């Protein structure tokens, strides 16, 4: 093979042809040759040639055919769109290929001029996908709680999610378009913060001849009122808003809205102004006005209140049980188990402090109870007594119910299978030799999945690697070495004393710098139950790719296993990576092959993994589980409380054995039972699957940093 030219020189036709033949072999024929592609590509500058070859290589792994078509159209695409645009054009076609068919993908590639027009408009647009994460963090900083951000037809909020348009193309500069996004997000937050929804807006507009128009005016008036509020607390933001207040208001409107700028103007003022206004004209079209949907806000609020009431009662039930266990000696009958709360008086801007009492004695509320109480106070302004009654319908109730139904005999051990006890909370005993667990390999999947993840997350991976490098352990001084980069003074002094006493000068007198080994063994246990199908499974696999890339830098010893199964006699553990296996093609294939299977019998998997971890030589042993929610199994009653209690027990066992368990859960509704189930373990809740790939690596960094 001839040598590859230096990175500045253009690739000659011969080399190009060889390379293309290699890459496209699968789809070449006598009528369709690599040579036909060469003239177009030979004329390109070297960076563009590299660009084309790089992408041909990637696309060919999914489809050589598509890669060929790309190579043929690439010169024109590069001329029209530049590298960034051409990449977007190709990625769009690959998405079409994944989602639909070769035929559709080929059509997408060919329609280059349509794409070029759209790309042109896009160049100045601020887009939702690009802005969402920053806006979400921005809102979290403003609000002190997590407001979800989602794309919608128009900007509005239901007080939990802020909906924003897919793109903003109002201005020629992208930064100004982003400013519109930011203004919308801030205004949506301000609606919740300054009580826009405390009045009955629906009733206020329904009397009007044109309710839709009245609602639009109300939204505009709120933009005026809230803008004025922001002047005081967020002057920088208010300045941004003022810059967007176009068209300017005419004199009549200006004087009509003047009362809204008063410091104490509340939603009542807005409604008063609305009643006095002439609604025959539409309101001024300020670009960032956030629409009002009072009905939806009510629904969300009612659902939240309900959810939080249940969650609070559950947490309190857990707290009561825990306290009873701690002080079991006292007579059961004397204690009714009644909670009371004492609240401080409300003051402007500050949270009210809450003291919690159980049967008259003060108790420290767990963190989640405290935040639930605060959230309820925000909605209701008070804490009704029934919210403090432990447990209740629909929530997780800690009373002994029936155990698993059906056959009762212990299982027999068989070759290649391991047998484990399981915790039966109702009996308060283990069921001996209850579960059979078999290990098997994940069937390798399409490696293109890994490549695509590597491509998609290239910048993030580079960043992760940098942060992980920082963890790698500092140089450490080894003393009393025979060679080294400095004198070991302690040894030298002792040596001199030896010489003075007539003995020989010892040889080990030096210090040497040596990279310290992080003595860690980590086990990742991944949920492969059927419920992970779709997004969650994708996110799990991507998370593992990012994690492996980052861990490669660090050199920590780690293993990855998946778990699933169906009934206690068929629990399965799937090997993805053993501790002593390198992160190479085989492991990548197995990561790609992680696929949703059956159920989630979590306890037995944790017990097995615990045993494997204990067999590893390491000073620190870490168990990280990745799951999508409640443990569940088919038929035999593992679902619900039994499974929660068994999982909790298995985590306790791990902790007692000196392992640090940490659980990552992807679930929005999981709140009520998680603190209980993870009793012994630390955990995080990931409520946005899209964040999972980064979060797993960053949790790991925090845990071991």
């Amino acid at each position: 093979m001839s040598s590859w030219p230096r990175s500045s020189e253009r690739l000659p036709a011969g080399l190009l042809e060889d390379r293309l033949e290699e890459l496209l072999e699968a789809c070449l024929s006598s009528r369709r040759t690599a040579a036909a592609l060469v003239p177009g590509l030979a004329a390109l500058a070297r960076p563009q040639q590299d660009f084309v070859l790089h992408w041909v290589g990637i696309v060919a792994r999914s489809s050589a055919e598509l890669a060929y078509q790309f190579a043929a159209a690439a010169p024109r695409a590069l001329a029209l769109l530049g590298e960034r645009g051409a990449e977007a054009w190709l990625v769009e076609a690959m998405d079409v290929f994944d989602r639909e068919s070769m035929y559709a993908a080929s059509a997408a590639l060919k329609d280059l001029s349509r794409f070029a027009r759209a790309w042109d408009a896009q160049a100045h647009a601020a887009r939702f996908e690009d802005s969402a994460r920053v806006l979400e963090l921005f809102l979290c900083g403003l609000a002190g709680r997590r407001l979800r951000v989602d794309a919608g037809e128009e900007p509005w909020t239901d007080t939990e999610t802020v909906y924003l348009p897919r793109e903003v193309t109002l201005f020629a500069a992208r930064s100004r378009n982003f400013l519109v996004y930011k203004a919308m997000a801030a205004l949506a937050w301000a609606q919740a913060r300054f009580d826009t929804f405390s009045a009955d807006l629906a009733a206020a507009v329904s009397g009007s001849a044109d309710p839709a128009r009245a609602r639009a005016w109300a939204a505009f008036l709120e933009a005026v009122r809230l803008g004025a509020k922001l002047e005081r607390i967020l002057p920088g933001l208010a300045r941004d808003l003022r810059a967007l207040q176009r068209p300017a208001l005419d004199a009549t409107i200006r004087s009509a809205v003047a009362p809204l700028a008063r410091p104490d103007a509340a939603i009542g003022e807005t409604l008063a102004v609305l009643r006095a206004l002439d609604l025959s004209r539409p309101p001024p079209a300020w670009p960032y006005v956030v629409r009002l949907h009072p009905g939806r806000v009510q629904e969300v609020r009612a659902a939240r209140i309900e959810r939080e009431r249940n969650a609070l009662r559950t947490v309190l039930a857990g707290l009561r049980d825990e306290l009873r266990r701690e002080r079991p000696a006292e007579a059961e009958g004397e204690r009714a188990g009644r909670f009371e709360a004492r609240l401080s008086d409300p003051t402007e801007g500050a949270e009210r402090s809450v003291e919690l009492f159980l049967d008259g004695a003060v108790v420290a509320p767990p963190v989640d109870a405290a935040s639930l109480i605060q959230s309820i106070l925000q909605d209701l302004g008070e804490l009704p007594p029934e919210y403090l009654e432990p447990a209740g319908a629909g929530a997780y109730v800690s009373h002994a119910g029936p155990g698993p139904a059906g056959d009762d005999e212990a299982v027999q051990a068989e070759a290649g299978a391991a047998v484990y006890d399981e915790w039966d909370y109702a009996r308060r005993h283990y069921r001996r030799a209850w579960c059979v667990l078999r290990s098997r390999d994940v069937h390798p999947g399409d490696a293109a999945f890994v490549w695509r993840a590597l491509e998609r997350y290239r910048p993030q991976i580079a960043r992760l690697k940098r942060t992980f490098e920082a963890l790698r352990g500092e140089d450490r001084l080894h003393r009393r070495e025979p060679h080294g980069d400095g004198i070991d003074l302690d040894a030298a002094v002792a040596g001199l004393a030896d010489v003075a006493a007539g003995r020989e000068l010892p040889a080990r007198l030096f210090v040497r710098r040596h990279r310290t080994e992080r003595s860690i063994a980590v086990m990742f246990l991944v949920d492969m139950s059927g419920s992970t199908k779709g997004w969650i499974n994708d996110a799990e696999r991507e998370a593992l790719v990012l994690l492996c890339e980052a861990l490669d830098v660090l050199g920590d010893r780690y293993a990855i296993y998946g778990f699933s199964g169906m009934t206690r006699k068929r629990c399965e553990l799937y090997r993805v990576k053993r501790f002593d296996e390198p992160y190479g093609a085989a492991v990548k294939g197995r990561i790609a092959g992680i696929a949703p299977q059956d159920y989630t019998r979590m306890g037995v998997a944790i017990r097995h993994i615990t045993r494997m971890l204990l067999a590893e030589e390491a000073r620190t042993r870490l168990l990280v589980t990745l799951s999508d929610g409640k443990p569940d199994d088919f038929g035999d009653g593992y679902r619900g409380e039994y499974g929660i209690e068994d999982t909790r027990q298995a985590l306790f066992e791990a902790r007692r054995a000196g392992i640090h368990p940490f659980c990552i859960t992807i679930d929005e509704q999981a709140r009520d039972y998680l603190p209980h189930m993870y009793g012994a373990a630390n955990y995080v809740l990931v409520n946005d699957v899209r964040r999972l790939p980064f979060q797993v690596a960053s949790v790991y960094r925090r845990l071991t940093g």
Partner: protein
Amino acid sequence: MDTRAHEADQYLVKSEPYYEPVADEARLFEAAYASRVPVLLKGPTGCGKTRFMEFMAWRLGRPLVTVSCHDDLTASDLVGRYLIVGAETVWVDGPLAAAVRLGAICYLDEIVEARKDTTVVIHPLADDRRILPVEKTGEVLRAPPEFLLALSYNPGYQSVLKELKQSTRQRFVALEFGYPAAALEQRIVARETGVDAATAERLVRVAGMTRNLKGNGLDEGASTRLLVHAGKLIALGVPPRAACAAAIVQPLTDEPETLAALHELVASVF
């Protein structure tokens, strides 16, 4: 002046350090000191632990020996070692031994950073034996009543490698430090930097927003220390947004999206 008195003198805190009490930490500290129980200061970085120690040392009139722990810190770094002077070996006390002899307050900053075996040497000092065995010389130093051991520890790290062992933590009275309440923090920032009250208020507002992001993009929010840094830059004429970017935003993270969000938050306030 004999040498020991001279040594003690150089560790003395001469003038009153500026410290704003947050709760009753000073009283608790004094009570622990009077009962000869060692003290553990828990709290996030930059919330005033070191400043508090200086203040208490001044108030109690004791020398303050501070050791910043790092992961190469060995037991001999703390206790002492032999040096060669001329042809003779001479024993030199490490800061911990020196503090014991002086009846000083010994403050081990960020104890979890030190090597695990290092924490063990403080155990006999931290229980009611109050002794420091010096292995190399065979000496056993007995701490005088004025001696006090204090550690600091940041529980915000979730790292399993940096947990303080129960056998260590259960020897101490623990004082918990958090960021001061808004009004107090404003006063601290204004006083430490010379910025006006309005600017201090805005800096504290920015800090609150970054603290909201803890666990959501940030491992830790901006500390009082960062606000003081930003305030100092502003007092020297640096425009507020630039000062916050340099002194608050950049030190917190490298993650581009989080950086962008932080810049937007700063721009909302200033």
